[in-house]
């Protein structure tokens, strides 16, 4: 499959200014902007990095460039959410979608391992789509755990927190320049572990309509906190309560966005 991806990238590079993908060299693997003439043998698919953020950075910096990105399912979902929030210009981005294997999907409890490229013009999908993996079993069991136990569990987990902001910095859909987590009004600065539950509740609340389930936060966490358990629960709620699935439809506005067109009284908005 990797040769297929490299061939596709080579083909697309004829038309595009550059393609964001992972490059592995003797120093390690990291995101890179491939351009014509680069050694495509260095292009790899692992490990994972927030490529949507890289693409956003590059699009903002090079305002006329037409770029491509080699993206997995979660990367494409992140690109969709970033595009909705004006961090990505979809017209200037071509996606080379790559499906994950079923093992990878299982590892991530990923419900949608194949990228959905319907809304990305000029994009191609490489690999056979595999069915979604079952969700994290803890999420289903969570309803049975009493509140006091939940509190004790998260308190123990978050006492380990180093306040590295890594979960935010690695998140492919976090981009605000002024972050609520750095606002002394909400999170008292300079404390270790950061104030529980403020820091982590705010982070979780901010993930509600954004989290695309890529699990990079959990992997970047130096304290091994199972963050995605919390975020999965939140994602489930968003789908059930307001029928919004982050990353699904590029034309659907994020649910907390208010426009005057939305002013008509909706009969289902009854609490």
């Amino acid at each position, binding site marked *: 499959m990797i040769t297929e991806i490299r061939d596709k990238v080579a083909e697309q590079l004829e038309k595009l200014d550059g393609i964001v993908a992972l490059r592995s060299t003797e120093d390690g693997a*990291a995101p890179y902007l491939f351009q014509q003439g680069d050694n495509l043998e260095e292009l790899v698919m692992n*490990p994972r990095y927030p490529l949507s953020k890289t693409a956003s950075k590059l699009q903002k910096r090079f305002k006329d460039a037409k770029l491509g990105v080699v993206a997995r399912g979660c990367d494409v979902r992140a690109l969709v959410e970033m595009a909705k929030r004006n961090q990505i210009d979809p017209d200037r981005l071509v996606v080379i979608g790559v499906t994950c294997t079923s093992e990878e999907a299982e590892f991530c409890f990923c419900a949608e391992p194949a990228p959905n490229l319907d809304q990305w013009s000029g994009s191609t999908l490489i690999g056979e789509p595999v069915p979604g993996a079952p969700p994290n079993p803890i999420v289903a069991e969570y309803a049975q755990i009493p509140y006091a136990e939940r509190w004790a569990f998260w308190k123990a987990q978050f006492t380990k927190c180093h306040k590295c902001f890594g979960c935010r910095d690695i998140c492919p859909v976090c981009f605000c320049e002024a972050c609520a987590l750095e606002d002394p009004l909400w999170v008292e600065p300079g404390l270790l572990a950061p104030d529980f539950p403020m820091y982590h509740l705010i982070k979780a609340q901010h993930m509600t309509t954004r989290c695309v389930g890529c699990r990079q936060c959990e992997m970047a966490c130096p304290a091994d906190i199972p963050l995605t358990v919390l975020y999965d629960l939140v994602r489930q709620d968003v789908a059930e309560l307001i029928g919004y699935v982050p990353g699904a439809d590029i034309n659907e506005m994020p649910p907390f966005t208010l426009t005057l067109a939305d002013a008509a009284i909706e009969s289902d908005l009854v609490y």
Partner: protein
Amino acid sequence: MDYKNIQTICPYCGCGCALNLEVIDGEIVGVLPANDHPVSQGSLCIKGWNAHAFVGHEDRLKKPLIRKNGQLEEVSWNEALKLVAKNLGSIQKKHGADSIGVLTSAKCTNEENYLLQKFARAVIGTNNVDHCARL
């Protein structure tokens, strides 16, 4: 148009975590963790995530400075090196090599530390070499 990540080692504590410096057109724009590193394993602490922040700071020294009339003034490399060489030489001649002390650095590379202690021992001729390991 150029975007790359350079893997390097964090300049803060002694854990020796690897990190990637995100470079766009010769400017560092951010840090990414290094996933395949045996110690950091794709994680960093807050200092690591901000390891690039001081590199482009406006306070960075950009030219050699020499104290003239009590004030530090910008001068050329040539002038600064000549002055250092002259003064180190005259003090070494007048007061002996052991009147000169050299502090190497726990923040510089092995090569630089090696070179500086070689300079102290082989050129100046003193074992007055130390660094802040004690501090």
